[in-house]
């Protein structure tokens, strides 16, 4: 049985509080800092043990920066991240490395994330060597076992990444993430570079692995239907902030935030019978270097009010397990 059903629903494996990551904008010959891009701006959420937590949003909304900041692959500017009760910000280099055994990452482009000069066997053994686990024979055995788990064969260990298709490379990337038996996997657009028929194979694999190993996923994606299929809870991001967060079902069936509504209505549907009403957003996402004051969405919001232009809305619960940051609900 998966841990999801055993664990208390309040049991958080990962907890981000007021997490912020700003990037400095440097201009001029002296490269003086003249501004900031608030890529992630004071976001808070909890990821429960055994669940799949989705982060969706359009390009530039900060979802990938959030994923990397959680692992401290990018050093956050402010806020705290707690993993398994331990605050990551307080850890030194070696403490952090030990912690990373339990938290792994999978990236979008499995070609860029695998060393082209190493054989698959070496790529998969590397995490074990870095963390000093087992002897040579034990490592080989573990590698062969994980290869089988992700649906590849032992003879393929001799191959180089370029000899594999996109779907197979993503399986290898997943295998590498599994080598250390992590508790959490952060997957950043793991299927968006793949064809539909391969995409479903990888999603099914990730689903099976979660059941077998009790994994917790943070699943970052722009594809709303994939997220709906795969995640238990979903956070919608816009310009560095979470605008809505909730259990998948109410969030998709009764979205509260005007941005979530527009986003969901924009998805092309293959259901021809359903002529859904489309909310066409005007204009484009403003530059995060120059984010609007108040609610960041007010420049495109069809329901913007006066207060939206100067006061940042806070996350408020609108229904059990469903919260949004919008003045319409406060």
């Amino acid at each position, binding site marked *: 049985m998966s841990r999801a059903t055993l664990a208390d629903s309040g049991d958080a494996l990962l907890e981000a509080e007021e997490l912020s990551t700003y990037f400095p904008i440097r201009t001029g010959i002296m490269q003086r800092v003249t501004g900031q891009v608030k890529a992630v701006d004071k976001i808070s959420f909890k990821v429960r043990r055994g669940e799949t937590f989705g982060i969706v949003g359009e390009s530039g909304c900060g979802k990938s920066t959030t994923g990397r900041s959680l692992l401290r692959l990018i050093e956050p500017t402010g806020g705290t991240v707690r993993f398994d009760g331990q605050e990551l910000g307080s850890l030194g280099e070696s403490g952090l490395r030990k912690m990373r055994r339990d938290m792994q990452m999978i990236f979008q482009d499995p070609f860029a994330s695998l060393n082209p000069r190493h054989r698959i066997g070496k790529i998969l053994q590397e995490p074990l060597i870095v963390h000093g686990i087992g002897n040579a024979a034990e490592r080989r055995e573990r590698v062969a076992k994980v290869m089988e788990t992700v649906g590849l064969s032992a003879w393929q260990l001799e191959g180089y990444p370029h000899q594999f298709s996109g779907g197979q490379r993503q399986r290898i990337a997943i295998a590498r993430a599994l080598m250390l038996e992590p508790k959490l996997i952060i997957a950043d657009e793991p299927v968006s570079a793949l064809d539909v*028929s391969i995409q479903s194979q990888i999603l099914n694999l990730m689903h099976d692995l979660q059941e077998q190993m009790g994994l917790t996923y943070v699943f970052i994606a722009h594809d*709303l239907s994939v997220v709906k299929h795969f995640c238990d809870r979903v956070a919608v991001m816009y310009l560095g902030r979470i605008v809505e967060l909730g259990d998948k079902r109410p969030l998709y069936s009764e979205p509260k935030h005007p941005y979530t509504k527009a986003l969901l209505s924009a998805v092309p549907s293959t259901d021809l019978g359903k002529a859904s009403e489309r909310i066409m957003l005007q204009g484009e996402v403003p530059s995060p270097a120059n984010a609007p004051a108040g609610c960041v969405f007010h420049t495109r919001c069809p329901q913007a009010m006066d207060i939206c232009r100067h006061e940042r809305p806070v996350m408020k619960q609108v229904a059990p397990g469903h919260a949004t940051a919008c003045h319409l609900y406060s």
Partner: protein
Amino acid sequence: MEPHLLEIVDLHTHFVTERGEIPAVDGVDLSIRKGEIVGVVGESGCGKSVTSLSVMRLLPQPPGKYAGGSIRFKGEELIHAREKRMKQIRGNEISMIFQEPMTSLNPLLTVGEQIMETLRVHLPIGKKEAAARAVDMLRKVGIARAESIVRSYPHQLSGGMRQRVMIAIALCCEPELLIADEPTTALDVTIQAQILDLMKKLNRETGTAIMMITHDLGVVAEICERVVVMYAGKVVEEGAVKDIFANPRHPYTQGLIRSIPSMNEERSRLYSIPGQVPKPGAISQGCRFAPRCEYAMDICRAQLPELIAGANAAHRSRCWLNTTQEVAN
């Protein structure tokens, strides 16, 4: 019934490589009527982009090679047309837009200069008139402040704006056919919705036919009337969008439709087509989909089925399952 605007018959486009000739497009039949929006769907490597580049005669030769078949545009054969004639056709009668607008726009010219260039190559108009038309065209594709955007360079614009500019360039000479190769794949959903909406509107207003190349069945459902499904260099199914979604006849089309995570229903597991798309040239006989097909029979591995219609003459599929009755007789 109206004659076809574009008629591709038994097109073979090969790539000449060190390991021999690889048939990327292997006997494709495809036709488009005036004002029609036709989707061409398939996964990477199925030959959909090579088909469109063949129509525009934009494949460098070598390695590209037109190994057979015909491409007729308004009755005129394009395969053997001279380059001079193709230059008149491209941008004027048939236009094309690509997935990544940044790489297809010239970074050194302003948006206005690029629209004016296209106009003045094809139409006998002066600079002033071309400039005025450029601004008009930008307005038509929904760009606010067209007077100032006309003087911007591509890098100053966002992805959605660049794709609008591409569409403006493609449509400024009022072509009869627009080939759009994954025009919204690089864009976010809310911007994609805007661009698809714009294309539909321009199709209605100007009567430009659109060949929409995409891997996204959602986009097809959204904008197309008819759809052609390709697999490994061949058309495996074609028909009206509503027929194909309601009653896909080829197991590959069925698999594609079933693999999409649906927004409306929930399943714990997604259907997935086993195996992978074969490498071009890897299969020489039989149905290309047979190695991945759950219904594969002996005949599928031995002999290639024809693309034939069932009760509905407009809905054709290339599968022995749909032809076995006829064979038995």
